[in-house]
């Protein structure tokens, strides 16, 4: 198309960072130099071939970010020239994602988590100490801060949940350069943070060692998602196969797509990402769509605060995800799958890439998989710091290289998903369950759990528990039993509240430990299993501060597309701030009524689940915990 590109000229380093992602330009017309004889009388750039590469916009921006450390006007213009994208549109994408910087930033950046789980483990104090010692977090207008830091070398930033709640307080260290470095940091202290900012070697990735609690967990039922975790080398395809890997795919190829879906249907497996939609129904619908091609998207954008179960599966059992995706592709007629992984999981990215590569080399991805007619391959795409991209349509937008703004539904992804084609979107844990369903049968799977909630479930225990980590229990286990499994409340602690399901979930009281963890029981109790978050708080936790953090999270992560959410999340946070400061408008009762009203508008009027659940945790804090007043006033 006809573009008006910025005058700014990209540096050679920026060009090569972009070319590393997009390949070298082919002519004068796609960003290359003039002088090629053919270019004077012909061009093949700007039409459908160029549009077919539009989805590479986000990877190209990420390439610049990773190597240069920020996205300059010249760099952005070069990407636009290469991909035939209007600069305004590219700017819209670059500014949408929190981990892309559009103003100069030092190469080394420490993203310090100050979200709920890290907060109850001292993140607030840690950040204060860090600020005292090294100046305020980086902002676009470098202030007088960074007293002890070389502002050209390093900076730190507040970050929302990094999915390292079992290692709280956590951080993510990123260093831009020719060989970019990314490392998850656990058990962070202010001293260690300052060392890291001063250039210290971060050592091995904190996600590399699974916590003892989840190693090789098995069940009498035989259904164990964690069976290989911490036991089988996640970087070895041979080890995976020796541990029973790829038996399920071989079996699925014998069974054929219809039988695979029939077994999944019989298992009554529902999605583990939070929405609990029957998996077989999705698969069957996509399978029957005449439009081609079909796409498979594995949603590994695990960003719900307090959630880290998928991180453990992706990091510790990556081949299982590759295999499960291949089976899903077989069942639904997909030849191309995308694994969309949140940016904050560098180790999981490395392991998944390695696994996909090894599988490809071994003929387990690509054409004629295991000698059959099955053709399927996986492309791993990384997020760039946007919670909303875990939403099932925002993830398509992001893979298509756009701002992660959810789409209106209908049409639903099963008919009009990625690139407008029929698409399966499944959560990592959902797919992981498919392996044992294929191997042992759907009926056997359904015997674990309850009639309506079958199988086992991964729960992410964090906060003030004795042993934070991932725990796999059959559906129907009580909240109390699960908490006991994780060592109960930490020594000296007295349980004051639990957060179920993450920021989009709800608080429950200490007297509700008898709650059975099933979809039907939680629904009846007015709460949700969500993404399996169980965060415990003892008497030391400032629950009102945590509620404020949740409100700030939603305000920050709202994509801003629809008014109820964009405005509502701001109004909600403002009201909570007024309550916290004691400067209410019209008194506490009026503020609580306002919260209810704003919450109802968000729930009823928002396009996607983010806005619809942005009031859920706050609401439960008001009404279930009575955090802001006596129960009589807080009656639902």
């Amino acid at each position, binding site marked *: 198309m*006809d573009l008006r590109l910025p005058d700014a000229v990209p540096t050679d380093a920026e060009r090569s960072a972009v070319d590393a992602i997009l390949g070298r330009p082919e002519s004068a*017309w796609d960003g290359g130099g003039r002088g090629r004889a053919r270019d*004077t*009388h012909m*061009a*093949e750039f700007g*039409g459908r*071939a160029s549009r077919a590469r539009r989805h590479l916009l986000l990877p190209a921006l990420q390439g610049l970010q990773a190597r240069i450390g920020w996205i300059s006007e010249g760099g952005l213009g070069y990407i636009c020239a290469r991909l035939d994208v209007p600069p305004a549109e590219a700017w819209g994408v670059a500014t949408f994602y929190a981990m892309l910087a559009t103003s100069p930033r030092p190469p080394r950046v420490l993203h310090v988590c100050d979200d709920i789980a890290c907060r109850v483990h001292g993140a607030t104090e840690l950040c204060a100490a860090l600020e005292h010692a090294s100046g305020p977090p980086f902002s676009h207008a470098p202030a007088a801060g960074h007293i002890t830091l070389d502002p050209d070398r390093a900076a730190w930033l507040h970050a929302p949940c990094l999915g390292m709640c079992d290692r709280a307080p956590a951080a993510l260290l990123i260093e831009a350069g020719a060989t970019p470095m990314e490392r998850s940091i656990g058990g962070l202290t202010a001293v260690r943070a300052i060392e890291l900012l001063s250039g210290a070697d971060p050592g091995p990735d904190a996600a590399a060692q699974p916590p003892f609690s989840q190693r090789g967990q098995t069940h009498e039922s035989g259904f164990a998602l964690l069976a290989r975790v911490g036991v089988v080398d996640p970087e070895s395809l041979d080890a995976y196969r020796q541990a029973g890997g790829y038996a399920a795919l071989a079996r699925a190829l014998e069974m054929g797509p219809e039988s695979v879906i029939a077994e999944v249907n019989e298992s009554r497996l529902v999605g583990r990402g939070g929405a609990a939609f029957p998996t077989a129904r999705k698969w069957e619908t996509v399978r029957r769509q005449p439009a081609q091609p079909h796409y498979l998207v594995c949603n590994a954008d695990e960003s719900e605060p307090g959630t880290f179960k998928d991180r453990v599966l992706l990091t510790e059992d990556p081949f299982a995800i590759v295999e499960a995706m291949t089976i899903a592709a077989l069942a639904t007629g997909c030849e191309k799958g995308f694994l969309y992984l949140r940016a904050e999981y560098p180790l999981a990215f490395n392991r998944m890439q390695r696994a996909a590569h090894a599988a490809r080399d071994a003929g387990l991805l690509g054409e004629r998989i295991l000698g059959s007619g099955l053709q399927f391959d996986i492309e791993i795409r990384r997020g760039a710091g946007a919670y909303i991209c875990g939403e099932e349509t925002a993830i398509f937008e992001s893979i298509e290289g756009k701002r992660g703004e959810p789409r209106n539904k209908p049409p639903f992804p099963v008919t009009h998903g990625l690139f407008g084609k029929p698409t399966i979107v499944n959560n990592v844990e959902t797919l992981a369950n498919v392996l044992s369903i294929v191997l042992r049968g759907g009926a056997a799977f359904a015997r674990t759990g309850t009639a309506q909630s079958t199988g086992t479930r991964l729960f992410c225990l964090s906060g003030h528990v004795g042993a934070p980590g991932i725990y796999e229990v059959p559906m129907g286990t009580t909240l109390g039993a699960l908490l006991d499994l994780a060592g109960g409340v930490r020594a000296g602690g007295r349980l004051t509240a639990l957060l179920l399901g993450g920021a989009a979930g709800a608080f429950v009281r200490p007297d509700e430990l008898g709650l059975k963890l099933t979809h039907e029981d939680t629904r009846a109790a007015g709460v949700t299993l969500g993404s399996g978050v169980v965060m415990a708080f003892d008497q030391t936790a400032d629950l009102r501060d945590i509620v404020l953090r949740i409100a700030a999270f939603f305000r920050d992560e709202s994509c801003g597309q629809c008014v109820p959410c964009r405005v509502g999340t701001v109004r909600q946070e403002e009201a909570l701030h007024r309550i916290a400061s004691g400067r209410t408008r019209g008194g506490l009762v009026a503020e609580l009524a306002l919260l209810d009203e704003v919450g109802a508008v968000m729930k009823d009027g928002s396009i996607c689940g983010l806005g619809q659940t942005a009031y859920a945790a706050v609401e439960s804090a008001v009404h279930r915990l009575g955090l802001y007043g006596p129960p009589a006033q807080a009656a639902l």
Partner: protein
Amino acid sequence: MEETDVVFLWGSNAREAHPIWFHHVLKGIRNGARLYVVDPRRTTSAQWADVWLGLNPGSDIALSNTMAREIIHAGLQDLEFIGNGTSGYDGYVESVEPYLLEVGAQLTGIPADVIRDAAHTFARADRAMICWTLGITEHHDAVDNVLALINLCLLTGHVGRWGCGANPLRGQNNVQGGGDMGAIPNKLPGFQDIELDAAARERFEQLWGVKIQPKYGYNLTEMLKAMGRGELTSLYVIGENPAQSDADTHHVEQALQGLDHLVVQEIVMTRTAELAHVVLPAAATWCEGDGTVTNSERRVQLCRKATDPPEGARDELWIMSEIARRMGHDWGNPCAEDVWNEFRVLAPDFAGGMSYRRLDELGGIQWPCPDESHPGTPFLHARLWERPPARGRPAPFSVVHHEGPVETPNDEFPFVLTTGRRLESYNTGVQTASYDSPLRRGETLDLSPEDAERLGVENGDILRVTSRRGSVLVPAHLDPSLRAGLVFMTLHFPDDVATNLLTIDASDPKSGTSEFKACAVRVELSTTSFATR
């Protein structure tokens, strides 16, 4: 347009010159159509294309004949259609035989493989169309250019079907309507031939009560020549600005100044009006009067009066009726609908069914529409597909050959100057100059970065551009869509830079159009500053 598979935009920068129509192209693209743009410059339209074919100016016939030969040799022609609906095929085949891919590549500059791909894509498409504008018609061999494109459509059967066809895009909302109503020298209203169609003449004579001379009139180019010879001494100009819009301005102005009597009917004071003996201030009929317009797809649409004309400006029908009355013919006081209804009677096959009531109800009707039960005609020439072959003569192939522009570059005039339009301005600026646009940057000579470097020219430097006819001063503008040797100007700012002092007055004897699209010029850095020229 929106439901076709392949679009050839040939000699058209519709993105800028037909921006509204280009939206329909974009819809077609969105629906999966492939776009090929044929233009010496990689225009903004070409930047949307799957393939840009950057031919040398004036080599259109070479390109189309080469494509035709390739189609024939690859066996991709539609022999069934050719047999049923066309004539002259064998002669055509013979005529294109010399146009080997290599020959075409040599003449057009386009690589042979790209021509081959274009030919195959066009021929293999289920539905394909060629749309053209002035890049085809502003040449001294304009009619041959058009015939060459029609040949391609006939060869492949891309005519007379939905989503197919050979489509000239009209430059104004009512260019087509002007032709419909007889504002062409050889036709009565409704495209009835003034020499050949005696029955039509008789209909007009009976109703009008005057004798119609069976004699073709002059087109504009011929009029100018007749003025030069002193044969044409009076001229009545309605809504046209030949003093600035025509090639070789010096010559045109002299001709106008030599007239005994020049009447200009206008809505603004144009350069031509300044030369007139009498200026008749007219209402702007599109909003200050009633009437119809016909767009590029032959859709006749009602235009309604929305506001009164300013003090002193008169409705154009009133002006003409009043002139007639004072010349001794009382036409009464007809309104636009009266005139239209008379037209329907005089051209019944063409417009009989298009009453104002139906035009209003249906939001416009595509002609021909012979009676009030007829829905209008979405596309023409469907009869060519009818079996047995339907009434009328088969569509003839035409033998045309590459000639190239009249002027070719030489040592003295080493550049080819081609002219065109920009998005924010229209022709000589009569309709657009009074509006501000952030895009408007005044007249420039656009040249390739390579030529700029060779001449030591930077953006904004004042250049002297000289052709065999004249010389102008104009600021330079580096344009990467141009290749070395090719320069570009518009005609939007004739008061600042009279581009048409440079252009050649060579014209097509068949259509009268001038060769605005190619002349040879010399470009030098000027020592004169632009302000004090």
